[in-house]
């Protein structure tokens, strides 16, 4: 790369302009990084959902309950290995902004269906021995500075009153993507104290003997409860998570639209910068050609300038986005998987370079096509 000094000198030529263009790339790629994080945060649950698990909800809607008696009937269906249930407990800790999922669980079966939550045996035993016990994710412990034995008041939003729980166990995620911001307490205690919806639970999760059987088992379940008072809708956990994400609003579409507009603008800004740069240097480019620089090396010189700008700006933006995510979820709990994965960084860089190439190619071709005699005649 003998033309490196010339390439660098060209970049330094109009420092303000170069800085602004690099800055545009940085801003756009920072935004890209954050959007990638948000998108990942909403769809991460889909990626980690177990393929051998089925979620059974009331056919009418997710928030309609199902009878607790279904557990025994589900267990008897061939292909079903374990059945557990959970019930949503709408509750607020201290302040409404401190959102985290709280549910009452069937402590006899929950762990065998969800092995990805790692809990020490001693702590689990302590939980089983305390009717007011709770199991909390390490993410919550970190966030609120809780420790084992703390008594946590939760103000019910569905069931009235303030409910108090003792932290008896803390679970860790077996994988990076495991949600470590959940709060579980005992389903039997919920059943005993809630003033209505007696004998009902929120939803069931079934573990099948093998993923291959998931479809037939799901069908068998829905058939079993059809024409009953509480019909069911059974899906694999993966498609359940995916449809849940869809309900979160069309975030994917929103992200693509915002991203598309930003990158289109970036393309125009950079294309314009490079076009001006070439127009300003018509004479110099002609001189380079006169003294023997080939068309392709002139093309390369202009294109490289655009690519260097893209790489510098894009790299800076993605780095900032990464640093931003390292500080953790800024929404205080809404986005538990706040993480910029390496694939997103690589595709972000590729995107920046792609824009740099598209923006640079037209000016580069016009530089390549420049006729020396015409260019030198222009004053």
């Amino acid at each position, binding site marked *: 790369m*003998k*033309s490196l*000094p*010339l390439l660098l*000198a*060209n970049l*330094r*030529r109009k420092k303000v302009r170069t800085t602004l263009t690099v800055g545009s790339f940085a801003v756009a790629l920072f935004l890209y990084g954050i959007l990638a994080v948000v998108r990942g945060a909403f769809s991460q649950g889909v990626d980690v959902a177990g393929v051998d698990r089925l979620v059974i909800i009331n056919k009418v809607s997710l928030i309609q309950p199902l009878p607790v008696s279904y557990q025994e009937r589900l267990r008897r269906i061939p292909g079903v290995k374990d059945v557990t249930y959970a019930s949503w407990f709408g509750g607020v800790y201290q302040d409404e902004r401190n959102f985290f999922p709280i549910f009452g669980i069937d402590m006899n079966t929950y762990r065998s269906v969800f092995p990805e939550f790692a809990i020490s045996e001693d702590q689990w035993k302590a939980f089983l021995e305390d009717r007011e016990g709770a199991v909390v994710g390490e993410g919550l412990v970190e966030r609120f500075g809780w420790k084992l034995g703390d008594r946590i008041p939760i103000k019910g939003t569905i069931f009235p009153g303030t409910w108090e729980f003792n932290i008896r166990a803390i679970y860790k995620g077996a994988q990076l993507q495991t949600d470590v911001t959940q709060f579980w307490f005992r389903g039997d205690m919920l059943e005993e104290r809630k003033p209505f919806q007696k004998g009902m639970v929120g939803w069931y999760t079934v573990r099948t003997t093998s993923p291959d059987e998931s479809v037939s088992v799901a069908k068998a379940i829905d058939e079993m409860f059809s024409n009953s008072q509480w019909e069911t809708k059974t899906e694999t956990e993966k498609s359940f998570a995916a449809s849940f994400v869809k309900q979160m609003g069309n975030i994917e579409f929103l992200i693509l639209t915002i991203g598309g507009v930003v990158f289109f603008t970036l393309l125009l800004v950079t294309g314009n910068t490079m076009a001006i740069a070439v127009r300003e240097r018509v*004479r*110099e480019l002609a*001189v*380079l*050609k*006169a*003294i*023997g*620089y*080939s*068309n392709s090396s002139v093309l390369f010189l202009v294109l490289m300038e655009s690519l260097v700008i893209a790489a510098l700006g894009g790299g800076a933006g993605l780095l900032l986005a990464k640093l931003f995510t390292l500080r953790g979820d800024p929404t205080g709990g809404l986005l538990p998987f706040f993480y910029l994965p390496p694939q997103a960084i690589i595709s972000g860089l590729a995107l920046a370079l792609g824009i740099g190439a598209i923006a640079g190619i037209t000016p580069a071709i016009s530089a390549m096509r420049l006729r*020396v*005699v015409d260019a*030198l005649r222009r004053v």
Partner: protein
Amino acid sequence: MVSVDVQGSSNALIQVRSLEKTYHRGSEELHVLQRLDLDVEAGDFVAFMGPSGSGKSTLLNLLGGLDTPTSGSIKVAGDEITRLSAGELTQWRARHVGFVFQMYNLIPVLTAYQNVELPLLLTSLSRSERRRHVEAAMALVGVADRMQHYPGQLSGGQGQRVGIARALVADPTFLLCDEPTGDLDRKSADEIMDLITRLSEEQGKTVLLVTHDPLAAQRAGAVLHLEKGVLVEAAIARTAG
């Protein structure tokens, strides 16, 4: 010896035969060069004069391989350059032609040293060899003390010296100078002409010079006038070195 009325082939360095260049401006045809013949031998120093618009730059551009003629032939050191492809012509220019422009045409963001080095970046010379050549060329034209200056920090005369060093550095077969003193005051112009004369006489360079300045033309071994598309020999001021 330069000659303008040759026929057939000779063993001159540059042989131009029946060269025509016609420009089309709308339906109008502009015959700038009309069956022009010219022989230039190695070591010749030729000045071209003629009124504005007579086609001097056009001729120089054709000789330098920057443009292609409408018809006719240009042979340089045995190569028929009118038959080269655009890519081959570019390589040929790099090896054979040193251009000196009226406006110097230095790259403003590169130092004088880097400007002079540009043609050598196209060669396989190592960095230290390039340094040796650049320093020699800059010393030869008298700007050895301006290597790290940018073009904007040089006087007109110094800028043109750097331009000449750039033209010389790759040791081309011949130098093409299109009004190299056109933008300079009398004193600087004389100094530049001293330099070009010295290159011809002491270094044996073949020089083709376009100028409007009779004093500058006087330095050449032959002065040719471009009139109505052909060259005519004017009184020879001095014999070529």
